[in-house]
Each structure stands twice: as structure tokens, then as C-alpha cells.
């Protein structure tokens, strides 16, 4: 039996988001001046990448049925550890590795507490969100943190500008592809989905649920810190407020893309569209000249409507 392209598209959980993406793209294309220029599309991608890298980890974690609300704080922590070590004259590459390690360690702690003490990850990582932010507030508000005057090829490669794109766009897309393959085509991906779907059954089939979960927390923490290092490479300064609210944007992008809030199914392609959708909305509103204070209200309204449509579409399948 041959399916038409449209039926095939409709059968995908990403379809709803993809449809909204297209509609909004066309809307801005018609009404927003200069929206359809290379620069505008480049800036849309550039705005999306840091959140995007975080979202890759969050997608895997949510597929496994867990939350990480600390990613915004870990993002800032990755920034901070990196800049701190560079300013202490550490070799930049070593600083980069240690910055990512800081995120991985937070991930291990999150995962260990969640699995060992059976505290919902929502709670554990909410606590971690405050704890890290408080720690940064304590440590990092006494001076200005900037890399002004420091030249580094490593930082340029990590997130310099090539043509109109920052290099992190490339890292982001590579991570999406890897994440997609992992989720769809590996034993790990299959078992992550099983854990998110039904933890008890998964354990019964001989899967080490706790080990898998701790590993995904590590991955999420590591990626959030990595996003932090790319952010630092781009802006070359640190402020304790970086990444505030990022955790909720990440959850929004992930569920917009079709990953189940309850776990068991996840899609990196969907998350990619979700992230681009959020940044396209922002970019489009800027180009339309909508006053900045309206952004949040409009994005919020859009989010609710899009999710309602998504769920309706999914129920029809």
C-alpha cells in the first residue's frame, strides 16, 4: 500500500509543529520586512543554538521520563567555570573540558539523588536550579568577568563566526543528528524510551533503569555546560544572570516538537523544529517592530494554542 506524502507527514508526531512552523514562516515572510533574507535566517539560527544544544540533552532525558530544571543554571555554571579557568591562565582546552565536567558532575548528582532516594527529578533539579544560581551569585558578583583582550583560536573555532553563522550552529546540528540516531537506532535509545514508557516493565525486562537514567542526566548536564562554553566563546563575558528561564524554554521547545511530557516517546527532529520556531517568533517580532515587552505574552499565547492543536492532531491519528 502506498501512502501519499501528506498522509506520511501527518502520521509523524512532528507534523503539528512543522505545520505551525510553516504557517508562521509564511506569515512573517509576507508581513515582516527583510524576514526572507540570509541575514535574518542566519540570526534566527544564531539565536537558537545555545538553547538548541541544551534541548538535545533535555529531549533524551524527557524521553526517559525525567525532567531537568537545572539546565539554565548549569548553562551559567559552564560559562563561569570556563571563564574563571581562562582568567586563571589555565590552558583554554583544559578549561573547556573542566567546564563540561562541571555540568556532568551536576548531572550525576541530579541522577543519583533522583534514582537513589526516589525523589521526583522535577523536585531535585528545581533545588539544583536555586543552589547553583545562589552559588554563582555568591561567587561571581564581586567583579566584572570578561575575556576582553584575550585571543584564542580555540574560542574562535568553538563559536566564532563563519560567513553569517556562528560555529555553534554547526555543533548544534551535529548534535541533533547524533541524538536522533542514538534515540532511533541504538540499544540505548530503545531502552531510554522503555524507561520513560514504563519503568517497572523496563526493569522487569532486565534493563538497568537507574544506570540509564543517571547517564542521561550526565548527558544533559554535560550538554548544558557545553552550551555555556559556546555562549562564552561568542560573547566573551559572563554575568550571573545568564540562562535564567532557559529550563522552561527548553521544556517548551521539546514538547512543541512532539516529545511526550510524560516520557516514552521523543523526537530530536521535532525538538529542532521547536527550537527554531521559538527563535523565529522572536526574530519575526523584532522585524515586525513589535515592542519588546510583548514578546513573552505572544510566545506564551502561541505556545498554548500550538500545544492544543498538536494534541488534537495526535488524537486524530
Amino acid at each position: 500500500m502506498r501512502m501519499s506524502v501528506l498522509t506520511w507527514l501527518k502520521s509523524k508526531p512532528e507534523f503539528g509543529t512543522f505545520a505551525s512552523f510553516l504557517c508562521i514562516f509564511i506569515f512573517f515572510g509576507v508581513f515582516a520586512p527583510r524576514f526572507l533574507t540570509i541575514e535574518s535566517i542566519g540570526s534566527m539560527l544564531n539565536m537558537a543554538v545555545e538553547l538548541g544544544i541544551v534541548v538535545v540533552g533535555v529531549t533524551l532525558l524527557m524521553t526517559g521520563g525525567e525532567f531537568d530544571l537545572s539546565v539554565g543554571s548549569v548553562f551559567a555554571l559552564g560559562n563561569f567555570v570556563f571563564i574563571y579557568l581562562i582568567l586563571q591562565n589555565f590552558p583554554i582546552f583544559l578549561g573547556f573540558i573542566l567546564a563540561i565536567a562541571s555540568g556532568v558532575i551536576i548531572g550525576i548528582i541530579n541522577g543519583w539523588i533522583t534514582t537513589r532516594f526516589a525523589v521526583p527529578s522535577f523536585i531535585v533539579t528545581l533545588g539544583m536550579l536555586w543552589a547553583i544560581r545562589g552559588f554563582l551569585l555568591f561567587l561571581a558578583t564581586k567583579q566584572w568577568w570578561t575575556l576582553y583582550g584575550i585571543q584564542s583560536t580555540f574560542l574562535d573555532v568553538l563559536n566564532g563566526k563563519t560567513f553569517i553563522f556562528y560555529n555553534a550552529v554547526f555543533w548544534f546540528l551535529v548534535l541533533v543528528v547524533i541524538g536522533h540516531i542514538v534515540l532511533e537506532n541504538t540499544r540505548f535509545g530503545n531502552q531510554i524510551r522503555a524507561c520513560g514508557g514504563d519503568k517497572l516493565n523496563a526493569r522487569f525486562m532486565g534493563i538497568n533503569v537507574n544506570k540509564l537514567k543517571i547517564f542521561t542526566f550526565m548527558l544533559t548536564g554535560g550538554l548544558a555546560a557545553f552550551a555555556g562554553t559556546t555562549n562564552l566563546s561568542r560573547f566573551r563575558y559572563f554575568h550571573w544572570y545568564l540562562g535564567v528561564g532557559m529550563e522552561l524554554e527548553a521544556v517548551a521547545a521539546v514538547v512543541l516538537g512532539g516529545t511526550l511530557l510524560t516520557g516514552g516517546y521523543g523526537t530530536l527532529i521535532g525538538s529542532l523544529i521547536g527550537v527554531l520556531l521559538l527563535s523565529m517568533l522572536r526574530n519575526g517580532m523584532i522585524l515586525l517592530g513589535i515592542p519588546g515587552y510583548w514578546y513573552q505574552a505572544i510566545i506564551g499565547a502561541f505556545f498554548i494554542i500550538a500545544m492544543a492543536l498538536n494534541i488534537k492532531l495526535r488524537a486524530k491519528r
Partner: protein
Amino acid sequence: MSQVPIIELKNIRKFYGKIEALKGVDFLIYPGEIVGLVGDNGAGKSTLVKIMMGVFPPDAGEIFVEGKKVNLRSPSESRKFGFEPVYQETDLISQLNIWRNFFLGKEITKKFFIAKFLDKKKMRDITSKALDNIGIKIKNPDSDIMALSGGERRSVSIGRAWHFGGKILILDEPVTGLSVKETEKVLEYLKKIKKTGCSVVIITHNIYHVYDVADRIAILDRGTKVAEMRKEDCTPEEIMDIIRGKKKIV
């Protein structure tokens, strides 16, 4: 049957605190037979089966697997002997499709450079074939589990247990909650499984659920095996009477 039993439990006793859940029960299973383990709630059926599954050890008694005395210390040890449980409460994972469920925890992979990837084609084929062998027709191994009926879901779990080297499938209330038609189907699959030489233990409180397919029926009552008979020697009504305690058979 003059064969060696696959498993033989002798004089098994088990205490929960001061309560004696099993008061010296003998139970054995031969290759290729379907045994109904029948009794009311609290009769000791689950306790007996959990001992077979290695969930906990008996307080007294001996276990022989194919004639050799063994200690079943863990479920994984018991599964190595080929005792595969299909519990009532554990079913398939609805978010995964059929082949992903079928191979969950035992995924087949192929190496590609340094990484191992799922061999989806092979797993799809094996899933279809394995289910087809015991008469379960599945149009598409990529179907959502949600699209299957209760009976089909139960059948896929049974097919999975059988495929992965089960010598004895232990089914806890396998047809509870299924419609009459679906019950018939599931029992039909069990008959096919039996023909492959695999044995099946069906635990149930309702004799009518197993009478059709069982070769032998053992009845437990408050920790004692009160009766055991070949199906030809009794009617379901007689068995119900024994369970209710109206009739005594030695």
C-alpha cells in the same frame, strides 16, 4: 509420562512470619504439558510460583531441575534454566511498537565502524516469524502497541517469552479481563506453544479459564495441595467443588 520432569519441587514449605503459606507442597512439570495451578486467593499459588522463579527461596524442601538438585537464588538464575514468567501486571510498553517491545533488553545490533546500531530489519523479521509460528498474525511489526487488543497484547508477551528460550512459561491469570473470543485465541496460542515442546503453567482462580487446554490440574488450598488430577479424570464442576472446599479428594 515416563520422562524426567523439567522441574520438580519436593515438600516445599514457606513461612511469612508465623503464617505458613506452603505446608509441604510437591509439584512437578514435564516437558510439553500444560498444567493448571488452581486455587482461591491465598491458596499459595503465587508463593509456589515465586519460589520456582527464584524470587525467594523456600524455607524447607528441595528443587530439582531436570533431575539435578539446584538452588534458585534469583530470578535471573531461574530464567537461565528457561523459566519465563508472563505476569499479569507486567505487559508491554505502550509507547514502543511491537518489535521494540519484543526485543526490549535483548536488542540485536550490528557493528558499523565503532558504534553498534539496531538491526531493525532482522528484529522486524524475527518478530513476525516468531509470532507467526505460534499462530499470531501481526500485519506489521511496526504497529503501535496501542493499536492491539488486550488479547493480542497478551499474545505478544507470551510469544516473546516463548521465543527467548522459555522451557516453562509461567502465566499468571493470562486471560483475566479478556473477552471470550480473545480468551480462546490466547489458549489456542498456548496449545501451539505446547506442541513445540515447551511447557506452560497457568495460574488461575477460575478453572474454566484453563480446563480446555490443561493436561493436568493441581489444586492448592491454604498452603496444601488438596488434589491433582489429569483432566480426563474430572469435570470442571468437581474441581470447583474442591476449591470451594465442598468435596475432598486425596
